[in-house]
């Protein structure tokens, strides 16, 4: 994730404002902080720290309705996170520490017993914060506004990394800390995720604003990620993690492409474009390529993620997978249709005839993205192999905890020997730094 964030900030160089870069770098710091924090309070600190610079990014350098979008963004996210803070404090009072592995160990060994009612509440508080961030279906309304109004670099960071904070949080905290509650709530969350997939795709189809369209694809794609996570199979979770990465690349690239169009015409209206393939063949080819990756064409990165998620989900939940698959079909519809309206046909607006093609800088940016897309698509085993360990670990943890807490009286002494703290620690390291440690 980290190089991606750097990549995003690097691509925003066109905006020549000092404060802009300060904000971007603070966001980057905060996001790295979120991903490396193993301490709940520190995690929360960085989590909140991502908000303020983003708020200014949208509010100062955004488009027409930027203030509305910025305030909506920050209020939504804060609402979720403040409840998470309450849950964090609650956990602290129970476990006496903010240290995640420590809390986890205490929960697993039964030193700290969570009544199922409490666990559900805590899970809910954490999940709400993450679900708003992701965003999961009924909580998604801030996203299109924020995306549409944010400057390109802001959208890229938002789509590329920030949304992943939510799914990362689910994997990192919701599942291992509250496995029982996660299992109990999974059916509902799965349904919400599917609604998100289909609904996001359908709304995207009818958008007349190109950037809003891309924003709704995020809702749809992140629905896949949540679905993958809550299908609880190794493959689906791997797929979800992979989709997190690949969505960052594809959607980030889509936003970059849209941003480049905006730089030329200062509008996102689809009907203002049309027949752009002729004046700017290079830019539009890249655009098509990125769109294809986003709609999950087989050799490209989007495919791997969605495919893994669907396979994994299908193992346990046939109906879920069937519904989710329809989202994949819809994504082909909205992206290709949008592309058709923007790229093909007659040039309807006179100004568009003379638009310059991609400059050297833009080619470099797009080519980097394209290489990343192909690489992630073709060489996916490199990624999945690394994820496998941590995913398996995660699932093992969950099962173990269930085994421990299902019987009314846990046997701390016996179980303690079974759970060696080693692999759990390794799992966390692998996920963050991609350093492979075999347990």
């Amino acid at each position, binding site marked *: 994730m980290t190089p991606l964030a750097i990549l995003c900030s690097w691509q925003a160089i066109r905006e020549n404002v000092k404060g802009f870069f300060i904000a971007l770098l603070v966001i980057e710091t905060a996001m790295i902080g979120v991903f490396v924090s193993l301490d709940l309070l520190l995690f929360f600190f960085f989590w909140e720290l991502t908000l*303020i610079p983003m708020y200014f990014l949208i509010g100062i350098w955004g488009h027409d309705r930027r*203030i509305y979008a910025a305030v909506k963004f920050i209020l939504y996210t*804060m609402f979720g996170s*403040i409840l998470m803070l*309450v849950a964090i404090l609650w956990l602290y*009072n129970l476990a006496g520490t903010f240290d995640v592995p420590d809390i986890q160990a205490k929960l697993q060994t039964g030193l700290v017993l969570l009544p199922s009612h409490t666990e559900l509440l805590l899970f809910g508080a954490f999940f709400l914060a993450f679900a708003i961030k992701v965003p999961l279906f009924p909580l998604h309304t801030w996203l299109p506004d924020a995306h549409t109004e944010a400057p390109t670099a802001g959208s890229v960071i938002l789509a590329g990394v920030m949304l992943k904070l939510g799914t990362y949080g689910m994997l990192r905290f919701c599942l291992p800390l509250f496995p029982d509650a996660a299992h109990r709530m999974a059916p509902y969350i799965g349904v919400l995720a599917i609604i998100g997939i289909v609904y996001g795709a359908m709304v995207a189809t009818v958008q007349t604003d190109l950037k809003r369209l891309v924003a709704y694809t995020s809702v749809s794609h992140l629905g896949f990620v949540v679905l993958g996570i809550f299908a609880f199979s190794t493959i689906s979770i791997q797929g979800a993690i992979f989709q997190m990465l690949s969505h960052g690349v594809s959607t980030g690239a889509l936003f970059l492409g849209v941003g480049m169009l905006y730089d030329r015409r200062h509008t996102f209206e689809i009907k203002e474009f049309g027949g752009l393939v002729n004046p700017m063949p290079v830019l539009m080819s890249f655009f098509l390529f990125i769109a294809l990756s986003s709609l999950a064409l087989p050799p490209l990165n989007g495919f791997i993620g969605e495919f893994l998620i669907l396979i994994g989900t299908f193992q346990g939940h046939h109906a879920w997978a069937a519904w989710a698959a329809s989202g994949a079909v819809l994504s082909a519809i909205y992206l290709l249709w949008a592309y058709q309206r923007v790229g093909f046909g007659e040039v309807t607006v006179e100004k568009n005839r003379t638009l310059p093609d991609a400059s050297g800088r833009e080619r470099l940016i797009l080519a980097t993205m394209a290489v990343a897309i192909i690489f992630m698509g073709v060489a996916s085993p490199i990624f999945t192999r690394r994820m496998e360990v941590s995913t398996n670990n995660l699932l093992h943890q969950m099962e173990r905890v269930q085994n421990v807490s299902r019987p009314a009286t846990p046997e701390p002494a016996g179980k303690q020997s079974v759970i060696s703290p080693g692999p759990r620690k390794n799992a966390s390291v692998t996920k963050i730094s991609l350093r492979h440690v075999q347990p």
Partner: protein
Amino acid sequence: MTPFPPEQLANFHRLAPEIILCVFGIVIMVADPFVQAAHKRVLGWLAFIGTPAALAGVRIMANDPGTAYSNLIRADAFSVFVHVIVIGAAALAILGSFQYLDDENIQRGEYYALVLFATAGMGILAGANELVTAFIGLEMSSISTYVLAGFRRRALKSNEASLKYFVLGSFATAFFLYGIAMVYGATGTTRIDVISGKLAQMIVEHGQVASLAILGLALMFVGLGFKVVAAPFQVYAPDVYEGAPTPVTALLASGPKAATFALMLRVFYVSFGSAGNFWFWAIWISAVLTMLVGNFAALVQTNVKRMLAYSSIAHAGYILVAFAAGTDIGITAVLFYLAAYALMKIGAFLVIAHLGQQGEKRLEITDYAGLGTKQPVLAVCFSLFLLSLLGLPATGGFLGKLFAFQAALDSKVVWLVVIAAINSVIGAYYYLRVIVAMYFWEPSKDYVPTKVAPSLTFALAIAAAGTLYLGLLPARVLEMAKAAADSLYLR
């Protein structure tokens, strides 16, 4: 070789800050007629020097803990902590007043003297070991602040504020006094530390606390709730805070609140600790009401000063959340919150005092448009205070809330914390709105920024540094708050 017997000397030691403050106040009053109108600011500096001197007095008090004047006053770590808050608040308010009083053409000696007297009253409140003494402290601080609230004599709003504050405040103190009388009737004592023993004896003998004592406590809560602006006794606060001269508002919002919460802690925790089940729900309900009223009313304000007045109410609610915990952690949280709150609130009000310009004309949120580009440093400062009031990490306000929530959760007061958490998000909206205006709106053409006086810069720098210090390195202050909480129960 001292002219005083040692026990008399100890009395002086334990009341040192108040003595120093009053001496400075009297000197200013006496000197006032001899100072020409153009040089009145000298008296202000004299008053400002009085605050570090009073802090030195606190030091003396801290070195000689114990009770003074036949157990009327108690010098302990708790009292020291609150003294530092109160005197610090007064110092910042005095610093912020120099330029303001010049601008308003009301630069006079008695202003500073009254600030010092009010502070001395708050100090007595913080250290009172006996209810009638506490009442004297309450009256001392109240009467001074009644006058201060009306100090812009020619402004209608200021007069209204003063009168309203006086009439309602008198009622509140009367309630408090009546409460004392009832408690005395029930227990036969007015000493805070003895009441608890009497109540315990009562429980042993009769199996319950006399209803007269509970009634007395309820009446005292009315009086004290008024001072800390807890709902439903908060109605006066927005008008008074808006009408009073802004530096006075800064003092009103921080000092009396801290001192009164200190007394509340002593009365509720120490005296009526055994009757916790009686006052828990009163505090609970009051906390919820306070937060809701404060936040929802603040949402619709367009006047920033009034909005901050409502935000003071909301913050009293958050402090009550910690108060409801009823444990040592709760006391620590209340104290820490009071320290953080005083810094950020004074900072915010002083910024407003400056931006209001002559006659407090520019208080509407539209007047803040584009401040981020016109006066970037001031805007950053104000944003810091607002974000701290909002409770964003890295600021004192965040940790204050964090400790408050944690204390309440520790006592299993879960739903109150959830309500408080939701409230703080509601609060986020109106704080952010000011930041939106400052940074996202176009600056208005006719606005001419005025220079920030060095004294005000100094005050703002202290408040901002303190807010960040409490947010980033809270350990020291937290230790002190813990020590203060421990000292509260020492017999």
